[in-house]
């Protein structure tokens, strides 16, 4: 049986449908989840998609973080359920303290939209195990507030614990400290990143299909668990 991967729709989510499609193209069963429900409908993994939930009011992700479903997401993450936060989803994970640090306005003060080269710094996470360490990939990046910040101590700890998952290559697009594009929690089941792997799953609509491996990583992990 294919594993079930849920995608949460918040008011103002934009890329929930693309994420559901990416899940389907990767061979899992997509399940649409609703922010106002506290039920995860028995899914095996959860994606918080990109967009501008609650219009980015107050701070990006600050209001979504308290949506009823987030209590269940935080609890599931604690049990080791794979959770992927993409762009606004990454901001929500930081606001929910599932990941350290925060995302602020790009240092360029412009919205950035481009095909971004990244280096996969670790494949020791649930969402990157199908990559090789050091692999260079291209993933769509599009955001106005993708500037990752954290205090020096947190940054040093992330590096020491192999929890910087992706780094920007070529030009740092938003001022992120230490070129960080994505990080994970201590256990490696919760990953957040600003670029959008769900847009890189079909040669028709993207310059690469490097995004597929995010989803196949989680699917392989879930098959191994079920094995």
């Amino acid at each position, binding site marked *: 049986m294919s594993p079930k991967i849920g995608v949460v729709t918040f008011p103002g989510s934009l890329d929930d449908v693309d994420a559901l499609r990416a899940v389907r193209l990767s061979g899992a069963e997509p399940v649409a989840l609703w922010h106002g429900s506290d039920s995860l409908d028995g899914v095996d993994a959860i994606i918080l998609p990109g967009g501008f939930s609650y219009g980015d009011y107050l701070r990006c992700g*600050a209001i979504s973080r*308290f949506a009823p479903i987030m209590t269940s997401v935080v609890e599931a993450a604690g049990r080791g359920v794979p959770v992927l936060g993409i762009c606004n989803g990454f901001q929500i994970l930081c606001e929910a303290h599932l990941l350290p*640090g*925060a995302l*602020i*306005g790009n240092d360029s*003060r412009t919205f950035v939209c481009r095909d971004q080269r990244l280096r996969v710094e670790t494949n020791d996470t649930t969402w990157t195990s199908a990559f090789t360490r050091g692999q260079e990939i291209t993933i769509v990046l599009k955001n106005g507030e993708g500037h990752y910040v954290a205090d020096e101590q947190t940054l040093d700890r992330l590096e020491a614990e192999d929890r910087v998952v992706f780094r920007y290559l070529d030009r740092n697009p938003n*001022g992120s400290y230490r070129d960080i594009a994505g990080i994970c929690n201590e256990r490696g089941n919760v990953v957040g990143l600003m670029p959008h792997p769900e847009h890189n799953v079909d040669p028709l609509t993207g310059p690469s299909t490097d995004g597929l491996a995010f989803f196949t990583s989680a699917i392989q992990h879930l098959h191994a668990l079920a094995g």
Partner: protein
Amino acid sequence: MARVVVDVMPKPEILDPQGKAVTGALQRLGFAGLAVRQGKRFEIEVDGEVTDERLDEIRRAAETLLANTVIETFAVSVETQEQAAAQGQPA
């Protein structure tokens, strides 16, 4: 009805892109030597008296939702009737 104000500011070490944009615009308009950092002000109308317990509660609200203490600091103050009147607003 009393009013409590929560001021939220980006921490000094955190880049403030909005403040930088405003600073640049002021310079272009000829307002020289003004460096701006931009924060947020929350005016909170409180039912009943502002007791110490109520202020503690508002501090918890600020810490939980109004500010992200990873990147921001906040200050809670009670607005007096004189301050409110000076702003031309009912206290």
